[in-house]
């Protein structure tokens, strides 16, 4: 039986989770105070994901870098590829907060959106 101790990163409370797999294929999460903790514990065991926040260079002299985020946690193995792509981009303004910058990152179903408006 495999048991792992994790800290839930879904919110600032940071519940201490115990995730067990017994029998193989059946995952049980304890220690969570809400449903998000259960999802996090399960995903962390099977396929860890993280929300990515970063900035993208713009074509403007005033707002030089535009902050962006993924709309949902992205599989960890896709993060470095996304960051490399972002750091090669040059984004034309204007952009509205929430506007999709990259659609369906690497087929993950997760979008990358702007987190501020800039003219």
């Amino acid at each position, binding site marked *: 039986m495999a048991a792992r101790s994790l800290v839930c*990163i879904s919110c600032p409370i*940071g519940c201490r989770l115990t995730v067990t797999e017994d029998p193989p294929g059946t995952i049980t999460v304890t220690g969570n105070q809400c449903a998000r903790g259960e999802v996090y514990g399960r995903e962390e065991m099977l396929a860890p994901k993280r929300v990515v926040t*970063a900035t993208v260079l713009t074509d403007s002299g005033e707002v030089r*870098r535009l*902050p962006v985020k993924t709309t949902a946690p992205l599989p960890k193995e896709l993060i470095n590829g996304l960051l490399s792509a972002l750091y090669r981009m040059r984004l034309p303004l204007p952009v509205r*907060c929430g506007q999709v910058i990259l659609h369906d990152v690497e087929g993950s179903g997760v979008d990358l959106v702007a987190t*501020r*408006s800039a003219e």
Partner: protein
Amino acid sequence: MKKRSYDSIVIGGGSAGLAAAAEIAGRGYHVAVIERELTLGGILNQCIHNGFGLHYFKEELTGPEYAERMIDMTAHLPGIDFFLDSAVLEVKGPRGGEPRSGAENAEGPLHNGGLVVYGISKHEGITEFTASSIVLAMGCRERNRGNIGIPGTRPAGVFTAGLAQRLVNIDGYVPGKDVVIVGSGDIGLIMARRMTWVGARVHGVVEIQPYPSGLTRNIAQCLNDFNIPLYLSHVVSEIHGSRRVEGVTIMPIEDRHEQSAKSFRLDCDTLLLSVGLVPDNELSRRLGVVLNPETGGPYVDASLMTSVPGVFACGNVLHVHDLVDWVTEESTRCGGNVCDYLAGGKTPWQGAVAAGANVKYVLPNRYAPSRKNVFYLRTLVVKNRALLRATIGGRTLLERRLPHVQPSEMVTFTLGPDAFNGAHGTAGQGGLADGRLEVSIE
């Protein structure tokens, strides 16, 4: 010199200033917001990570998203003027800058525009603003190398974590390639991940305390995800390098003793300091506002008014908050109090508030038993199943069991007129001196 007159002047256009100004303008008063940067939103603009707004907006936002929502709720209001790229040089109190003691202030408000703010900007030169009230909302600033006294040479490459965050996220410069971080506060932890994601190598986070001071989830997602070592009970005892940082010496602390024989060196070109925040009260001090050494911010009465009549304070200039959501709540409330003051309402009787056992501070410093009082408290201890207790003269007004308290997490509670009924019965019999509200954690 240009002259302008307002009902209220808000100094600072960050989360505190915006919330206060929105409330004041929303109730029909004429308000000016003076902001030093080109954009509103303050420090939120550089905090591009998520985790903001869970309490206030009931969803998880990044800093810039939170800022934009605050701006959208504020900017369209009639009666509000923004002065961006404008610095405040000086604030003068009524009667030629000789503030009265506000602690016993029961006089009516000044409606003669008795307060003066001098601002300066490229486009307007010097402007003299007069107003009946001022909201101090200047936020806080970072402690730096001088505050913690790290010995060694003085090379380039030593930054506060927040400055590095600004350089990376706003200006687009990466301040170094090989990084060591001092202090495990949330800004330092967030910057460990940020620097890694922009291609730098973070070689360690050094924390003097035996426990991390940031959120556990940030230890998990900002350090453990990248195998960045966290050196608890360690200090940076020396900075090496002449023109640029070349490395640091790290020394363990055991039983409060420095173990220099066990110290080791980490090579790096950049040292980031995340060693605490202090309310930015230079303007307040020169105005004559009395400051509280426990918070670094002004003493305030039940309406968040400082010792200078008509001058209010909210947000991180009052005390450093851990969540922006609380800043918004406090500042909105402050804006409402400013409106009551401008309307000429009579100041209700107020009693003193004192920090009891295991409490670093409780704010505000006075309470008004006839009204709803919202308190913010910071503990001195880490404790599970702690008992929060509020008493007046031995009578208990509130007892609440808290699952967990620690110094880095603010505790909040409310006492309304109901709670004071009975407990305050002695006031009528000349017992006002006994009306001190004491708050403790046991």
